């Protein structure tokens, strides 16, 4: 028996529904159908009236959930794909995110964004939008990369009084498995050293953590390099303590992400490391993002659009040889 990443998301929602009467789920096709990715399978039957199908109205879905959250509920909204949250953008960044600062009343809303690319998904079913939401004050943005984090961070997100954008990576849904859901107790806001090392630090998040580990293994096999991989876990807030501690050990930084190259998590990480830990760096910091086009449909293009173990190794070799 093993648990997949999407199972963990389902389990977390089951636990939440069971243990917290304030929790309910809202989204397209999440009720009897169990969701486009089956992340809510069986929950409508187990918790009647608390797993509700919404019309195709992303903006109203979030507006509704904010209203319910103000009244003390803990809604979890499933976007069918992160990309469709573009239509709910206003309610997320202007209604949910500003509410606490404006009124003093927090909005305990969790928005689940099935994020990131998979082969053949194309420009509108592949986007990574964490940077868009992280830009706005008032939102917490998390990006679980492990089965256990998928579970625990969703539990923690719902426990939080503020709105959380929970970016779950579709590529990990069924590919990532664990024997069981094990947690190491890290709270939201804390990064994890996924793989210790001493020659360079890769700061990554979500699916890219696994690509970074792969690249690290290759470089170990290739030349005995020991690459440290930091999994940010949450991109807002950023755990700069852990990142800086890692860079202080290695002296070298590669910030790695799957999102578009202008701005985003990698820019924020590099800018903050340089501002706060300039003297720690023995080489210019590097960034690796997707290419600067929409996410292409064809698997061959897609594989060359996002960072891969190959392109990460190239970046790391350059970094190490500086």
């Amino acid at each position: 028996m093993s648990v997949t990443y999407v199972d963990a998301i389902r389990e977390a929602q089951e636990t939440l529904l069971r243990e917290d009467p304030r929790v309910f789920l809202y989204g397209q096709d999440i009720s009897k159908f169990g969701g486009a990715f089956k992340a809510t399978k069986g929950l409508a039957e187990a918790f009647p009236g608390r797993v509700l199908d919404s019309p195709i109205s992303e903006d109203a879905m979030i507006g509704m959930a904010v209203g319910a959250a103000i009244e003390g509920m803990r809604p979890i909204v499933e976007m069918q794909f992160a990309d469709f949250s573009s239509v709910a953008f206003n309610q997320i960044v202007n209604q949910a995110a500003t509410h606490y600062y404006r009124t003093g009343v927090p909005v305990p809303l969790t928005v689940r964004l099935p994020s990131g690319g998979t082969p053949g998904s194309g420009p509108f079913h592949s986007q990574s939008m964490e940077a868009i939401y992280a830009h706005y004050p008032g939102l917490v943005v998390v990006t679980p990369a492990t089965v256990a984090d998928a579970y625990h961070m969703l539990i923690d997100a719902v426990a939080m009084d503020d709105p959380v954008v929970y970016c779950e990576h579709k590529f990990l849904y069924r590919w990532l498995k664990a024997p069981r859901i094990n947690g190491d107790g890290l709270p939201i806001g804390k990064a994890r050293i996924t793989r210790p090392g001493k020659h360079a630090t890769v700061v990554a998040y979500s699916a890219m953590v696994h690509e970074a580990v792969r690249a690290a293994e290759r470089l170990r096999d290739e030349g005995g390099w020991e690459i440290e991989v930091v999994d940010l876990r949450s991109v807002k807030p950023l755990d700069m303590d852990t990142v800086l501690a890692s860079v202080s050990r290695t002296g070298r930084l590669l910030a790695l992400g799957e999102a578009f190259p202008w701005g985003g998590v990698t820019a924020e990480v590099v800018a903050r490391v340089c501002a706060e830990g300039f003297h720690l760096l023995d080489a210019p910091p590097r960034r690796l993002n997707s290419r600067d086009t929409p996410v292409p449909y064809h698997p061959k293009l897609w594989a060359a659009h996002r960072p891969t173990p190959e392109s990460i190794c190239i970046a790391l070799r350059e970094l190490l040889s500086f």
Partner: protein
Amino acid sequence: MDREYVRDMFRAMLKARLLESKLSSLYKAGKIVGGVYLGKGQEAVSAALGASLVKGRDIFAPLIRDQAGRTAFGEPLIDCTRTYLGSVLGPMKGRDGNIHRGRPLDGMPAMISHLGAQVPLVGGMLMARRLKGCLDGVVGATCVGDGATSTGAFHEGVNMVAVERLPMVVVVSNNQFAYSTPNDRQFACEDLLDRAKGYGLGGHAVDGTDPLACARVIGRAVALARGGAGPQMVVARLLRLSGHGEHDDGSYVPGDLRGSSLGRDCLENGIVQMIDAGFSTVEEIEAWQLEYADEVQAAVAQAQQEPTPDPWHEDWRACSVELGGKAI
């Protein structure tokens, strides 16, 4: 028609008018920064709605022209003056201003500017009540203008509320213009009320310049929603008797429209109606006027004396939680 309901409504209209005239003067004297948005001419619609609702039980999401509705619902004047004048003691603490105010925990959310966005929000507040098992006898209400009906937010929100069959009343004040844009550049149906059927809502038309008609029609729409007849839409015809904001002279409104029945002042109509119906007397109304003018004066004076926010002591945090002892 319930006498107390009509008297409540009328008093709110009167108080709102006096308050708003004062806000306008303050703005013109440079005492208010930002904008001032009045509900002049729209008090009957707004107050009829506010007076039909019960604070502490119902939900009311006012928009820009709802001073009368806010007052009828029970918002104290001081919340208004503090917010306009930036008192740190107001509900928004100087962080937001003018009509962007509310007390969500008292059932009155604070609007964001984006038109239409409050519709699903109220829907969600009602959904929460349903989920908590305390929706019985509750009504949620919000107001929008003709222009706001063109937003996707309005459409999605109203449709969602209809699907969920929530006890909600949406009042559309068709004041013929959205800022400067006339109805014929805003929609192409004969009557916005035609939309009610398309959403599966109960539909009600009313002359917004006629306070007794507003009391009757809007009161009935609220009663229907409260009684389980599902969501209702009211479309009121009227004109705003001010600019879009006090920076605007509204000169784009043609004279003949101003002179038409749409341009009648609902407050003047209301005075006549109150007296004719025996709901009040000239003397009583005059006494109210004096009383409210004093109240307004006091609310302004108090807010003006109060401290404005101090950036050095401001709690610059957009999230309520802390992580590891640090603000997010």
